[in-house]
């Protein structure tokens, strides 16, 4: 009898252990982890039979780790993926379409159409939905409100004017705010190919066109726009050390040496921590009005284990859909929402401004901004773009040489990749 009882106990134990699914999640640590943890705590209340293990992977080595995982077959159930790498991993990701109706009670079309267009292009692969948005960001301007007040300059859209600055107005504003506050520079910007792409896009120049052809040496405006970019550093409107030696732009901006920071909405939490009076503003509008999207997506790997895949998909849709876990994630991390007309109750009103400014920028950004950058060709060119621009700002090469070198790099990459796609 006793033996029987023990046997039953063991059986119950084994079965209950089997019933509980433990999902492994890879995340980049930091705020991302905090956001995931906050959402998971809530999810576990609703689904006590699911458990999670979050494994932090250092951000700088994230892609190495993911690729080695795919190569060696050691994959987590769920993973966050930085946007430039998202297309490369799509084939290893579970198609979430079939679960949308089941777990969210809406059609896949409704699901996709709720996102900003720039997000939808990134997360879908034909009809399939490979990712849900996690944190989504748009480039915008951050202004030092005190400096702008002192200079008596209004800024759009919540600082006394509604329309974005034209380029000429913007340059004028930079000069004035620098002079009025007697600061050494006007604007800080991180050294990345993406920022240069954004600048050139606004000025009506594309590095690659929609067919992924290299256009800098064909576009008559390209040389002038690049020269004007380099001149911003020569006039100390922008901070040379940032583009020459990769100085952290947050240092000059939060330290009060510059009045404007050209950065993503993801800076919000960092800027709040710096404890100064900052506000988001529109990027200027010239030939085009556009901004660059970015961020991290969340997806479930195809692990071949049906019950785990199902549990992973269910959680992914829960944390990635507005009104559910997504809101908890956003409130914790101070990221903006990837969904249109989605109001999140943040505990700091600054986030409403960020959502309004960056949401508007997301709406006006044309699709080509995403499709061009969603290519292997462009992502492999980024290092060269960044280094060539750095050399041009440092005065080691002129703009003509920069364009010529980038053309060479493009041709080499093209021949190596075999095709543009």
């Amino acid at each position: 009898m006793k033996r029987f009882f023990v046997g039953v106990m063991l059986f119950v134990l084994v079965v209950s252990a089997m019933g509980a699914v433990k999902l492994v999640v890879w995340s980049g640590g930091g705020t991302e982890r905090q956001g995931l943890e906050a959402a998971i705590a809530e999810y576990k209340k609703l689904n006590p039979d699911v458990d999670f293990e979050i494994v932090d992977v250092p951000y700088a080595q994230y892609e190495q780790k993911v690729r080695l995982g795919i190569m060696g077959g050691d994959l987590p159930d769920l993973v966050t993926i930085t946007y430039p790498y998202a297309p490369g991993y799509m084939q290893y990701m579970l198609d979430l379409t079939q679960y949308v109706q089941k777990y969210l009670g809406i059609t896949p079309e409704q699901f996709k159409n709720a996102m900003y267009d720039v997000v939808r292009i990134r997360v879908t692969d034909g009809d399939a939905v490979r990712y849900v948005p996690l944190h989504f960001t748009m480039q915008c301007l951050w202004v030092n409100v005190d400096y702008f007040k002192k200079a008596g300059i209004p800024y759009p859209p919540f600082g006394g004017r509604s329309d974005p600055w034209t380029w000429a107005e913007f340059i004028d504003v930079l000069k004035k705010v620098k002079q009025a506050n007697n600061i050494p520079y006007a604007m800080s910007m991180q050294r990345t190919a993406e920022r240069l792409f954004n600048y050139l896009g606004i000025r009506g120049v594309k590095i690659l066109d929609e067919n992924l052809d290299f256009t800098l040496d064909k576009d008559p405006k390209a040389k002038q726009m690049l020269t004007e970019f380099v001149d911003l550093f020569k006039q100390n409107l922008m901070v040379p050390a940032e583009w020459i030696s990769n100085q952290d732009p947050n240092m000059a901006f939060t330290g009060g040496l510059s009045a404007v920071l050209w950065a993503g909405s993801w800076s919000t939490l960092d800027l709040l921590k710096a404890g100064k009076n900052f506000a988001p503003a529109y990027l200027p509008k010239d030939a085009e009005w556009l901004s660059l999207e970015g961020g991290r997506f969340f997806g479930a790997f195809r692990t071949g284990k049906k019950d785990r895949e199902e549990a992973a998909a269910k959680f992914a849709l829960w944390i990635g859909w507005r009104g559910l876990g997504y809101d908890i994630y956003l409130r914790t991390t101070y990221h903006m929402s990837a969904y249109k007309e989605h109001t999140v109750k943040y505990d700091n009103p600054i986030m409403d401004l960020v959502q309004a400014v960056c949401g508007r920028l997301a709406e006006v950004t044309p699709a080509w901004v995403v499709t061009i950058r969603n290519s292997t060709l462009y992502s492999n060119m980024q290092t060269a773009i960044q280094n060539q621009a750095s050399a041009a700002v440092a005065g080691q090469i002129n703009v003509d040489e920069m364009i010529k070198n980038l053309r060479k790099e493009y041709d080499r990459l093209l021949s190596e990749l075999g095709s543009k796609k």
Partner: protein
Amino acid sequence: MSSLVKSRFIFVVPALVFLSLFVLIPIASIFTMSFYSWDLLRPPKFVGWNNFRLMLEDKWFWNSIWVSIKLLILTVPMTFFIPMALALALYRETRSSKILRAFFYWPYMMPAVAGTTMWKWLLSYDLGLLNHILKSCGLSPIGWLLKPAPALFSIALLRTWAMTGLLMMMFITGLQNISEEYHEAAKIDGANKWQIFWYVTFPLLRNTNLLVLTTAIAHVFRDFAGIYVLTGGGPGYSTMVTPLYIYNSAFTQFRIGYAYAMSVVFLLISFVIAMTTLRVRENR
């Protein structure tokens, strides 16, 4: 069996097992993979000599080798003589030297990213402590990282700073291996301190000198973590050393085959440099 023991080969065997398994086999596969095109996702594709052909035309790769050699020439004398001077000052077992050694070893213990970031802050043009001090003394600030020459020098300085702990301890170990009798004999012969150093200690340190020199060359030549943080290879490509260039190709562009082809060439160049050093030193 007894000949294995007699020739003392048996002592080498354990190390040889680990060496083969975890260094030689990976190296062999790097040589093999340099003939493939591979992004770690799709299956590798055999491309013959194509990676090497691309390399010949890759101006930035050859530029990076030139930068590496320049950095080597700039850094190695510093990483040789400064640790040697410190070791000479500190090799005796006094209380003060024991404590001071720990301080000089400290930078070597610091995680590379933390140490380099501190340097970056100290050297920053606008916000750096060094320029701040210069400015408050009424001097004009220096663009440590803004021009190719000072940037290269700053990197050399940082490498020296980071490696001194290791090399100083090597010198101290070597110095302590020298019998005091030699010095006593020289003293009796009436030699002064400098003479003792140049004519007695320095020649006796021959194997240690070789150790330090080769270690310094190898470390300066292969490392890139500091440069990655300090300048990211800039301005432009002026501090883009080969390991950093290879790293970028391999792990930001995921051109693994090409990166390995470059690694193969770089390893061969390293090897030539190392052999030259050894030959020059050993023949003396």
